[in-house]
């Protein structure tokens, strides 16, 4: 009999060939002033797989994503992207790795002086210099259509809702056809309908593009909808990692409490 916590059989299955990790994090530690945010965590994601990182506020979920894309530097531990350790890479070399990654910020972080279309075109203008203006325009329209934002090309970010901003942010993150997608609270602050739409959108993109994705979220419902695996963080450590059933069957008090409250 199905329960409210059954994982919908919608997710794309991760790649089985070789199981090489696209993103591998080992013994990662990060401290801000005297506060340890991440206390030696290890996680990995393969191609076609979506890992949802759950936890209470302030447990370092967003910091983990920022470390992976190199916006923060770890105190110790390693982060490997396609097997390459990114520690100490020069900004331009790190840029080459970032081209393979798409990042959706929690508050979308759209460029407020550019239109929606210009925001999505921004990575293309800088990294696809061989693209003609019309090719770029077509690509932007296609990306906006993919996230259900067609017809908003000339709108300013301040003129659209939070959910729409996240869609535009997602389109921008997908512009360079990344192999890795990092999503920071994609459904936070959205109403249940918008939240569901964003979740469906991520699932659809995941099926079509087979990216390795890490989704940071508080939202257990969307996490189990879009992720193959879940990792629950508490006090800088991974408390449990596995399928949703593993969390349900766990005897760990924190896991039980988290599931009860979600």
């Amino acid at each position, binding site marked *: 009999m199905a329960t409210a916590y059954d994982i919908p059989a919608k997710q794309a299955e991760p790649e089985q060939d070789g199981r090489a990790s696209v993103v591998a994090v080992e013994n990662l530690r990060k*401290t*801000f*002033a005297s506060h340890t945010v991440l206390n030696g965590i290890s996680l990995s994601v393969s191609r076609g797989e979506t890992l949802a990182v759950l936890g209470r506020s302030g447990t370092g979920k967003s910091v983990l994503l*920022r470390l992976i*894309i*190199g*916006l*923060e*530097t770890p*105190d110790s531990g390693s982060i490997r992207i396609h097997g390459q350790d990114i520690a*100490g*890479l*020069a*900004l*331009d070399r*790190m*840029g*080459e*790795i*970032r*081209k393979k*990654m798409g*990042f959706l*910020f929690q*508050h979308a*972080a*759209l*460029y*407020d002086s550019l239109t929606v279309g210009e925001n999505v075109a*921004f*990575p293309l203008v*800088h*990294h696809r*210099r061989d693209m003609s203006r019309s090719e770029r325009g077509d690509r932007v329209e296609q990306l906006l259509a993919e996230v259900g934002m067609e017809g908003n090309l000339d709108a300013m970010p301040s003129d659209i809702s939070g959910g729409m901003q996240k869609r535009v942010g997602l389109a*921008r993150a997908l512009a*360079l056809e990344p192999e890795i997608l990092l999503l920071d609270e994609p459904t936070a602050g959205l109403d249940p309908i918008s939240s569901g739409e964003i979740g469906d959108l991520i699932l659809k993109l995941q099926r079509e593009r087979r990216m390795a994705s890490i989704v940071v979220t508080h939202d257990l419902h969307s996490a189990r909808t879009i992720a193959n695996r879940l990792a629950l963080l508490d006090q800088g450590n991974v408390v449990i990692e596995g399928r949703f059933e593993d969390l349900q069957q766990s005897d760990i008090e924190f896991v039980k409490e988290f599931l009860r409250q979600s």
Partner: protein
Amino acid sequence: MSDRGFTAVAGVNLPLAGRRNRPSPSFAGSAAGPVNGFFEWFGSLGIFSWQVLKAAVTPPYEWRELIRQLDEVGSKSLPLVAMAGAAIGVIISLEARYSLSRFGAKSMFPATLVYSVIQVMGPIITGLVVSGRVGAGIGAELASMKVTEQIDAIEASAINPYRLLASTRILACVLMLPMLTLATDACALVTGWFAQNLVEPLSFHQFISSGFNGATFNAFLPPTFKTAVYGLIIGLIACFQGMRTRGGAEGVGRAATNSVVLGSLFLILADVVLVKFILVFFP
């Protein structure tokens, strides 16, 4: 320096955001360590300058953004510096005529006006006006981008923010300051002559030929082109203050204020050195 984000001295570029785990050193320092704060601020500025220089000289070059910034710094500052120059011309004219009359040296009026404007007042007034308008603008714009994660988004899009945001703005300031100074000088000379002409008729041709009589390029070019250094100071300080901002709206306000205050202060201090340098090397 304790900040891990600044370990770039070892040849490693670390992200701008990596600095958020430590409080940014302020120019005046903290109450606990004003001396440390002072040196940390200069150390951070030095590393920031190195990052910008490296980004500026390596491709890809951001021509489109540079042209936009040239317009932003140059064309849009032109009315302001022209008005400031016009006012300064009238003020110097009134003051010079009165002082020279007292010493019976009225014939020196054109040369006094020309030298005062071109060697002293034109450059410094242009620098201060641009520091107020452009310094505050750059500081506030970049600070606002920083606190709303737009600079992080640029970096996450594999674009070097030192290249796109800082080097273009600084270069625009360096290139535009001498041009704006020429505009200030021209306006000041015209209004200075006009003010004099209202009291004692003097043809413009006579005024110019008398004012520039015996002048060499050394008398006029170095004072005009020293403003490129002003531009460097204004752009560098404003970008530095903006891109290291923390603390929301308050941080944005602080960045804008600091950009103007520190930019103007360093500009005046630099002028002391530059004047001496010009006197020694361009006598």
